């Protein structure tokens, strides 16, 4: 089934960008400028809204002409591409976004044709769905579990590994006692915030080695 894999939804949205010769700078440039200032990691608007595994925003200008023997072709419009792997269900995810980061959404999508704004939540969801394309390929590093379940699993994995490293070879009765205490403590811990469980790396290029 397209768009859905377990608890994860693959959402692709193409919103045509307003083509207005009088706009200075043009709407696509205004979107680019705004996107360039958005924080990544735990401060990202998509980390602050619920249910995002991965989100990517791209301004698509046109088809690139690579030279003969290719044929020169053009898109009818510039598009804002929004790709996300998020928790299903879609209506809930979109209304969560609208509620958590309305100013960001309006600042970005107000440059797109027919965008109604987030103030009217129903109209916003309807607009986004009207721009939706079917998605069959998901981001490879996302599994089929929800964001809170994934974060809890990472937290558990890390904590259990540390527990084992600190308790290897311990006498069984004491180990059991300490393990039960550990499990109780772990269960009472809050789920970590999205964006906080990745490696701390000086490199900010997403692993591209150049």
């Amino acid at each position: 089934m397209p768009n859905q894999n377990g608890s994860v939804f693959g959402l692709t949205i193409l919103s045509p960008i307003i083509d207005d010769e009088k706009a200075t700078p043009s709407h696509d440039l205004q979107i680019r400028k705004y996107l360039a200032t958005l924080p990544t990691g735990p401060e990202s608007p998509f980390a602050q809204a619920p249910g995002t595994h991965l989100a990517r925003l791209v301004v698509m200008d046109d088809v690139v002409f690579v030279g003969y023997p290719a044929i020169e072709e053009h898109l009818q419009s510039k598009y804002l591409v929004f790709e996300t792997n998020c928790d299903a269900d879609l209506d809930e995810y979109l209304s969560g976004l609208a509620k958590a980061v309305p100013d960001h959404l309006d600042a970005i999508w107000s440059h797109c044709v027919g965008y109604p704004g987030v103030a009217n939540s129903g109209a916003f969801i309807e607009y986004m769905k009207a721009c939706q394309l079917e998605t069959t390929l998901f981001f490879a590093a996302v599994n089929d579990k929800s964001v809170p379940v994934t974060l809890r699993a990472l937290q558990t994995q890390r904590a259990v590994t540390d527990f084992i490293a600190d308790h290897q070879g311990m006498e069984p009765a004491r180990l059991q006692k300490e393990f039960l205490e550990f499990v109780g403590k772990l269960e009472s811990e809050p789920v970590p915030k999205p964006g906080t469980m990745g490696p701390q790396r000086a490199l900010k290029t997403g692993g591209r080695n150049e």
Partner: protein
Amino acid sequence: MSKLNGTDIQGFVLRGYNLPFARYVFLHFEDAARARALIGRLLEIITTGQRWDHGKPQRTVNIAFTHRGLAALELPLATLLSFPVEFQQGMKSRATILGDTGINSPECWDELWRENRVHAWVAINGQSIAAIEASTASLRSLIEETAGAVEVGWQDAAAIMDAGKATTREHFGFTDGFGNPDYLGVERSTQPGQGKLMPDGTWAPLATGELLLGYADEAGELPVAPIPHILATNGTFMVYRKLHQNVATFRAYLKEHSGQYGGGEEKLAAKFIGRWRDGTPLELSPEKPDPSIVQDPHRNVNFTYGSDPEGTRCPIGAHVRRVHPRDAFGFNGRLINRRRMTRRGLTYGRPVAQNEPASDREERGVIFMALNASLSRQFEFVQQQWIEYGNDAHQGNDKDMLMGNHGGQGKFVVQGDTTATNPPFICSHLPNFVELRGGDYFFLPSITALGMIAMGLVDPR
């Protein structure tokens, strides 16, 4: 693919010399014309890849240049700018990308590498110290005659001896130097397990263009290379890294942790690396070293990890499994065929026997030299993704146990089963067993290209 022209390729590229002594002399050029004259004279003694029909020579000489060195030789700007960007930048500028941070960062390197004075690497390998000294004397007299360069440093290296015989052991006590790949057209006594894994389970040579510029690589493309084509063809890029080994730290860590490990000290040491100290692959002999395997060229590199997906024989994070995953990433090994390198390493510093106290402060380690057509696609990728990050090996953020820049925070998981002598085990608080003390990226030109450089005939038009 026809046979390569061994007389045009530097011998260091085509074969591991297996000569027990080496000296790497580092030169700085002050005047382009005089430096070119020196290279012209050096051409008389450079060792090519020609076959050794009359046995191994007493000594060999090879040369390579940093980008700064090529600029000092006044190669045309259009040529200098056509080199891949990572080579133009040099290894020091790539520190963040390579994870060479903290105690591995350039400010902690040896003085020679903190400065930007190294223009050329001249490698002398020899059968004896006398042979090394003789070649050094020839080199120095050529330098003196031409006034072509200033010697800014040198590095001696030597195989660790055992009862008067050279071994391939390194200072932690492991037999090293397995697993260099085969390439199309390179004459070599080939072993099953080298090269690339084919869908039918056999092994075949890698495309020549994974090692040498000017030939098709595994993607059927020509590697990114400088212009003109003839300057690049039959040349390659080399990474030189001086890797200090903290032998005391390694021994103490192993001793402390093996106390809690059911398999014992030697088995834990083997789990770190993926081979027992004598070189027996854990994958083939998980319970004990087996000299019959090590000595058998049909078996000592001939294995895959497909039947050990859980890592209960060879841990998934073991050093050799991470840096040469063979079939471990699926797709018949295709994901790794463009990440292979040819290693030409030798140990330096006084070896310290197992029963002798060791100190981390003594100069001791490995001169790691790797040859590849693309520094960025091959060496830098392996360093960044497989050594300093664990995702491809399904080891999360864990770095390579042996080589990782752990800073005391590292972790390594030994997968196991339910038997008492092969239990699962977690090594935490990993220190840096190996520290980077300097190095750079070099271009190792062909004999033709050396001649063009010497005569000032490099023409990018």
